[in-house]
């Protein structure tokens, strides 16, 4: 990526204007996934397995089909035949198998059939008429048990090339990396701590359940409206699963009510299309909350062993981690990402990390904000904290001493470019929170966190109007105010007011391919593409001005929204504002647009440091978070308020994960807590205000220096809170969530 257009002085970027879609979203006008209907629309509903693992012997849909309000029933036979492939290579097959079970139901909540009827009530009633004969099989839901020799096999042949011979078939991918000699490093250490840690699966917990409206004709042409983080991936996947051409399916993304990684794939969308194809009518499906918990992507559960050696002066001499991640009944648990991120904040001479991707009878894991990184950070940063405590060292000083910086060889291999970890640690040390006194019963924890960030395929188009306003089309759904960031960046380049730019999330038929809104890529990649598209338009504006002045195009430059002559020989002409040029564009060469299509590479990794105070009731084990500060490198904050929002949201989700959120399975393999009453995400009264510090160490891979900010914020909280709770309680907590029964039991065990 040519970064000749790097910029450090800004007019619009860094300001905090109202978001363009604000009015729609405070008046109830914004259309989310379930807020649409179509003439002749049917309502779909999905029948789900009550068993964790069962062979589907027979499905009899005849009674449902005979129901007067039912217009279509589908099972796996109504989808395309896709070839099975091992590992993640056969991802279309995996998604299809998840969307509608084939030979076996692989988890409690796995879809086995679906109906479309004239009302939502009728569809639900009709599900009861479908008879499924199951042969119940032994199941396993725990990651360590799933790896044991006697564990039931979820699916033979799912493992890819990476898994060494002799491992259980439920281990489907294996990662090993690092450098140096860890044994030699441990020998140099003054203190070595080795410990094991466990985290339970959590759900992204977006408040909007999955919802879609699909129409597919027998001619293979279709329309799909859905709530998604990426409508092009929905298009591509649905087309593959239904055996139609990608371009014949037009997908429109609704406003999205939260995703956090969980809406990067499809669940109900292919089902709605399959029902529609059979019924010849539009079909709407809206998941219930219980379906969301039972059948959409929780994150992985994890079991981890960490060994770290430290010298008396705080130098880490060696670090080793084994990370076993359970990702449901399909390959995909990010054990490799956990391994690569776990030690990434540190400058280590000797480091070794192993990651496992393990299948179990649970729903297919989906990405959740920096997938894989938070659990690894929890384990590693807990051990570092314990080392600091035992050696009597300040936890920030120790992290500063070992912190990775530009030129450090990362734990995952390459040498870092300019990064901002040290700056976040220095900001932590200087922050009043870090030196504030604690009350009795309170403890303070800190943790660092790392995430890679992502670029991804990106297309952006910008069209100028005759009146000098601009419409910007991007393909990344606006999850948290990205329209505002895009408009700010376009305004910066065009030199016209922010308010004169209308940002639209284009559908798949009106813009080129765009990768999903994930990997914290939107402000980075769509932002970069927006800047380039605006530059492209500016070039054309300059050409028009040059032609009007009769001078060469390269003798014109763009400043403050005007074309002006540039250089000594360009001549003396009055500046021509954008609107002056566009007013006549039809007669001076035609409409003016700019566009950009590429896969920006250079997302720029990011780091954060969190400080948290926790208070533990020693009689009940209940924890209150009393103060929280997030410090994170944003590269460059385009709209600082929304950057703060990402930091605060990441911290809040981390608090939930650390303290109370977990998937609870019964001995029967069924999910016990599939409603918000029992899946306990933080409520307003659980949290303090969340302080933020935006550190800006520009990313060399973005013209304005942007680094993604969405994901890194959830990496440090688990460890920071565990450290705070462990100090408050006087006992090291090694299992998440640190629910009151676990803390009270730990306190009792500790005497």
């Amino acid at each position, binding site marked *: 990526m040519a970064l000749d257009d790097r910029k450090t002085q800004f007019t619009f970027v860094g300001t905090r204007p109202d978001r363009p879609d604000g009015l729609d979203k405070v008046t109830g006008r914004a259309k989310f996934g379930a807020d649409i209907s179509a003439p002749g629309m049917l309502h779909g509903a999905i029948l789900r397995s009550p068993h964790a693992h069962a062979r589907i012997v027979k499905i009899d849909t005849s009674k449902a089909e005979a129901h007067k309000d039912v217009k279509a029933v589908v099972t796996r036979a109504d989808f395309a035949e896709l070839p099975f492939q091992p590992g993640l290579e056969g991802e279309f097959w995996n998604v299809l198998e998840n969307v509608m079970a084939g030979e076996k139901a692989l988890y409690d909540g796995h879809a086995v059939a679906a109906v479309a009827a004239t009302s939502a009530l009728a569809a639900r009633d009709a599900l009861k008429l479908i008879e499924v004969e199951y042969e119940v099989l032994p199941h396993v839901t725990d990651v360590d048990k799933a790896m044991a020799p006697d564990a039931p096999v979820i699916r033979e042949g799912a493992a*890819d090339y990476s898994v060494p011979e002799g491992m259980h078939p439920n281990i489907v991918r294996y990662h090993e990396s690092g450098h140096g000699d860890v044994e030699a490093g441990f020998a140099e250490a003054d203190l070595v701590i080795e410990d094991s840690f466990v985290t339970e699966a959590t759900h992204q917990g977006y408040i909007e359940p999955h919802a879609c409206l699909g129409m597919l004709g027998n001619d293979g042409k279709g329309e799909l409206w859905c709530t998604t983080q990426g409508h092009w991936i929905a298009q591509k996947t649905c087309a593959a699963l239904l055996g139609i051409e990608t371009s014949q399916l037009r997908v429109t993304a609704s406003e999205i009510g939260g995703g*956090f990684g969980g809406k990067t794939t499809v669940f109900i969308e292919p089902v709605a299309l399959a029902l529609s194809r059979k019924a010849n009518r539009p079909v709407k499906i809206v998941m219930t909350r219980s379906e969301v918990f039972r059948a959409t992507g929780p994150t992985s559960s994890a079991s981890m062993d960490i060994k770290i050696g430290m010298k008396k002066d705080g130098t880490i001499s060696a670090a080793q981690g084994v990370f076993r991640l359970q990702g449901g009944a399909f390959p995909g648990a990010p054990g490799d990402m956990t391994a690569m991120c776990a030690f990434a904040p540190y400058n280590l001479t000797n480091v070794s990390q192993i990651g496992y991707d393990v299948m179990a009878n649970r729903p297919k894991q989906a990405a959740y904000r920096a997938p894989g990184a938070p659990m690894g950070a929890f384990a590693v940063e807990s051990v570092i904290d314990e080392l600091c405590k035992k050696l009597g060292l300040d936890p920030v000083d120790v992290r500063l001493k070992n912190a990775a910086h530009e030129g450090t060889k990362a734990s995952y291999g390459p040498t870092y470019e300019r990064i901002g970890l040290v700056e976040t640690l220095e900001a932590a040390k200087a922050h009043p929170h870090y030196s504030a006194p604690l009350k009795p019963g309170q403890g303070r924890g800190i943790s660092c966190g790392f995430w890679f960030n992502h670029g991804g395929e990106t297309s952006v188009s910008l069209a100028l109007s005759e009146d000098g306003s601009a419409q910007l089309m991007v393909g990344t759904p606006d999850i948290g105010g990205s329209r505002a960031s895009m408009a700010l960046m376009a305004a910066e380049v065009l030199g016209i007011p922010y308010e004169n730019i209308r940002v639209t999330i284009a559908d798949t038929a009106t813009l080129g391919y765009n990768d999903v809104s994930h990997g914290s890529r939107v402000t980075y990649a769509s932002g970069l593409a927006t800047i380039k598209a605006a530059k492209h338009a500016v070039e054309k504006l300059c050409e028009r001005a040059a032609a009007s002045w009769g001078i060469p195009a390269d003798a014109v430059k763009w400043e403050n929204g005007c074309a002006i002559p540039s250089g000594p020989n360009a001549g003396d002409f009055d500046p021509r504002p954008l609107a002056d040029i566009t007013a006549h564009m039809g007669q001076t060469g035609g409409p003016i647009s700019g566009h950009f299509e590429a896969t920006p590479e250079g997302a720029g990794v990011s780091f954060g440091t969190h400080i948290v105070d926790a208070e533990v009731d020693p009689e009940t084990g209940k924890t209150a978070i009393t103060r929280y500060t997030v410090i994170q490198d944003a590269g460059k904050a385009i709209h600082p308020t929304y950057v703060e929002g990402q930091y605060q949201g990441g911290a809040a989700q981390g608090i939930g994960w650390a303290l109370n959120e977990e998937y609870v399975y019964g001995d029967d393999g069924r999910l016990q807590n599939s409603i918000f009453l029992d899946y306990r995400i933080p409520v307003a009264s659980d949290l303090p205000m969340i302080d933020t510090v935006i550190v800006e160490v520009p990313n060399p891979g973005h013209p304005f220096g942007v680094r993604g900010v969405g994901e890194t914020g959830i990496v440090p909280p688990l460890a920071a809170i565990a450290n705070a709770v462990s100090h408050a309680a006087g006992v090291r907590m090694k299992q998440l969530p640190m629910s009151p029964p676990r803390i009270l039991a730990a306190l009792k065990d500790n005497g």
Partner: protein
Amino acid sequence: MVEVHLWSGLRSLTGGQQVVEVEAKTTGELLRALVRAHPQLQAPIDAGVSIAIDGRVIASGLTEPIPEGSEIYLMQRLRGG
């Protein structure tokens, strides 16, 4: 020639080698050259890899130029949320 550093898990596919020297001007050429040198590397490459050039992670692009003498690391394909 550039030296390509592999993650240690791949040593079983390269006869124990963790650094492979290949001739390549772009990321795509580099991957092809790796497979020529060690055909078993096709599997991890098909499963998805990223390439770090002097510390910058190229997630998937096959046309990124590889400057002479640059530091090259093969990495597992990054996935985000």
